[in-house]
């Protein structure tokens, strides 16, 4: 469906803005200036979004718990992050005497830098990719894995056995869940035939009878999305996989010895990683910037992208408010013994899907395999650990 010029311009407004601003400079400087402008935009936007998310999180958790969240600083507490920022900036920066000062200083910086690098390849709207790499997905995962180094640096440099334990646990968790993360993305790559994120979005930006071709609406895509979501929650240390940050546990966590602004940087890094990985999930499974119904394409593409992103964040907050946390060994068991096999089954199903050709048969076949695998493995896990609902008797 053709869009009116107004909506087309609205859709491309940031691209047009960038071109306009850059046109004031001499031609030889324009490409570099354009890129710098986009980088500046990303570096300003996502921390602002992070600030808003902290308020949303507190208010969301509060509303789940039948109470109001922060509502004193600004209307509905919107300016609360400003108060938090001032607090963290004015706190004394304590570095332990025996800590490795250089590593201690670099760890939060490295975390923040690698996390922001991931945004370079995410298509946030039509024609709104900072760098259109052919191997964008590969680049993204490389950056994601590098952020784990920062976590370990933080724990190591603190010279505190509890921080080190916490860091090792966190890194073990993150590495274990990298594998399902990648495997579920590989299914998408197999079907699309390309590692480029822009091509993945374009492949999903088609409509049949008004409904989109998002991968989540296919059996393998749905299963892949579920596995990806579980892996994401574990990668970003969110509930129910937030044992490395657990307050009621013995080990205090890798960021114990950090105070003030450095702690705020860790916090920032965690949330921006959450945005980044949700953005990737949106791109891979939820169609990126494509609209859910074909007659809604007049709404700008970047609005769709960010709405889906915020929806993912909301689901994260919802899970945090509901679920208790898993113990470390249970977490790892879950990764290796349930999520990983399911991802492998999903790969098989994706291949079947591709080669069975169009028609209802592949839907039935693939769904049946996935449901059987899920139910079977789920039951097996529960039975193996002798878990399950119980009935109770009463005294005579």
């Amino acid at each position, binding site marked *: 469906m053709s869009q009116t010029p107004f909506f087309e311009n609205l859709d491309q407004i940031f691209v047009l803005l960038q071109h306009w601003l850059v046109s004031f400079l001499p031609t030889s400087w324009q490409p570099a200036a354009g890129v710098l402008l986009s980088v500046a935009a990303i570096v300003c936007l996502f921390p602002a979004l992070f600030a808003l998310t902290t308020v949303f999180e507190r208010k969301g958790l509060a509303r789940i718990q039948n109470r109001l969240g922060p509502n004193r600083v600004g209307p509905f507490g919107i300016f609360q992050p400003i108060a938090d920022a001032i607090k963290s900036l004015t706190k004394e920066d304590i570095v332990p005497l025996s800590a490795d000062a250089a590593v201690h200083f670099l760890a939060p910086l490295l975390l923040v830098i690698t996390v922001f690098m991931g945004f370079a390849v995410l298509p946030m709207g039509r024609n709104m990719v900072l760098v259109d790499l052919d191997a964008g997905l590969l680049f993204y995962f490389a950056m994601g894995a590098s952020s784990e180094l920062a976590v370990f640096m933080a724990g190591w440099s603190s010279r505190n056995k509890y921080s080190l334990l916490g860091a090792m646990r966190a890194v073990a968790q993150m590495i274990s869940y990298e594998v399902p993360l990648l495997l579920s993305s590989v299914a998408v790559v197999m079907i699309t035939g390309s590692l480029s994120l822009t091509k993945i979005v374009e492949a999903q930006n088609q409509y049949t009878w008004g409904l989109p071709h998002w991968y989540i609406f296919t059996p393998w895509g749905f299963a892949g999305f579920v596995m990806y979501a579980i892996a994401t929650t574990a990668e970003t240390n969110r509930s129910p996989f937030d044992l490395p940050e657990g307050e009621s546990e013995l080990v205090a966590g890798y960021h114990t010895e950090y105070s003030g602004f450095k702690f705020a940087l860790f916090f920032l890094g965690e949330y921006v990683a959450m945005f980044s990985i949700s953005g990737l999930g949106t791109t891979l499974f939820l169609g990126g910037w494509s609209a859910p119904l074909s007659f809604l394409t007049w709404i700008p593409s970047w609005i769709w992208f960010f709405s889906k992103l915020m929806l993912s964040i909301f689901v994260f907050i919802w899970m945090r408010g509901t679920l208790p946390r898993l113990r470390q060994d249970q977490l790892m068991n879950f990764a290796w013994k349930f999520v990983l096999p399911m991802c492998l089954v999903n790969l098989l199903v994706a291949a079947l899907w591709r080669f069975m050709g169009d028609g209802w048969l592949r839907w039935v076949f693939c769904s049946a395999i996935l449901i059987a695998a899920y139910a079977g493995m789920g039951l097996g896990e529960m039975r193996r650990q002798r878990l399950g*609902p119980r009935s109770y008797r009463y005294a005579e």
Partner: protein
Amino acid sequence: MSEMQSHSAILADKPESWNRPAVMEPEGEGELMEVAMGPHHPSTHGVFRMDVALDGERVMRLRPVFGYLHRNHEKIAEGQSYLASMPYTDRLDYICPITNNWAYALAVEKLAGQEVPERAEYLRVILGELTRFQNHASSIGFLTQEMGAMGTPLMYAFREREKILDLFEELTGARMMVNYMRFGGCRVDASPGWLERTRKVVAGLAGFVDEFDRLLSTNEILMARTQGVGVLKAELAVNAGVTGPMLRASGVNYDIRKVDGYGIYNRFNFRVPLGDHGDVYDRYMIRMLEMRESIGILQQALREIPAGPVMSPTAKLRGFRPKRGEAYGRIEAPKGELGFYLISNGGPNPYRYRVRPPSLINLTVLEDMCLGVNVADVVLIFGSVDIVLGEVDR
């Protein structure tokens, strides 16, 4: 891995000091890591310390250290009249002041041979079961809070608890430190308006328990964290004097409301749920089921409450001097068997005043439950014992 000593062997051991040798042998070389959990700790239910010796992540030795909240309750009671100790009993198990009051009043009434009118007994049952309900709800809330559920079940439990505390305030004047029971009945009568409001609150409680159940009981993560963790065998529980939901979760049928039938409990129809495994999940579910039974008792009591006085005409407020003798009055408090042992020498003050604190006695088996478990589970097991430091330390 070497075998654990059998439990009865440990108890028969009767060590001289607390520095027992490790009852488990660590695998491999290396020292045990000694850690003190508490007294400043987000999840120790008050000021309480556990000295834990760890081999990697598994607990080899655990020594509870308490006494941080000791307030000389029993000694103070020897220096003041029986009535003056009543407000102090509120502050023992400060989550359940009504049942503390009741146990003390029962002991003194036994000592003095005092009768209690019918309406007072019904009011005691109503308030006692309301207390039990809010205690169990809060206890489950605290347990899930320690598990990392970010306080959501706790906030729901507290929402219901607020309704019950509002009822208490309307009747007795205070939300928590009620000071309501007297020797020979209750301090003030309940108005028909109060009874109506109580009926309304009780009508809403069943829906809350259903909601709570749906939120928690089949949650796979909760099951994974609590099933099979912190098992307490029935034999050890009985030998150690454990009472209350912990004992019933290990499968022992012992509920003082049924055994003694104190007050008018034998007029009510209620069942006693029993667990089979004795793990944390069983204790959690027993508390959930007991909440449902409490609702049943409340509905019956609110229907049948007769009119009449709430204080026995022979009760004396001032100048109360029971005859020489001793008495032990015990009730099924929400945490276990709460008993008061009083010795009177004919004077206005008790000669000896002793509280049998269920929390403390249930705590003696903490080490036995925690041996060999992951340190992350120690906090859960401790939470499932459901203690209040006011009672442990008095």
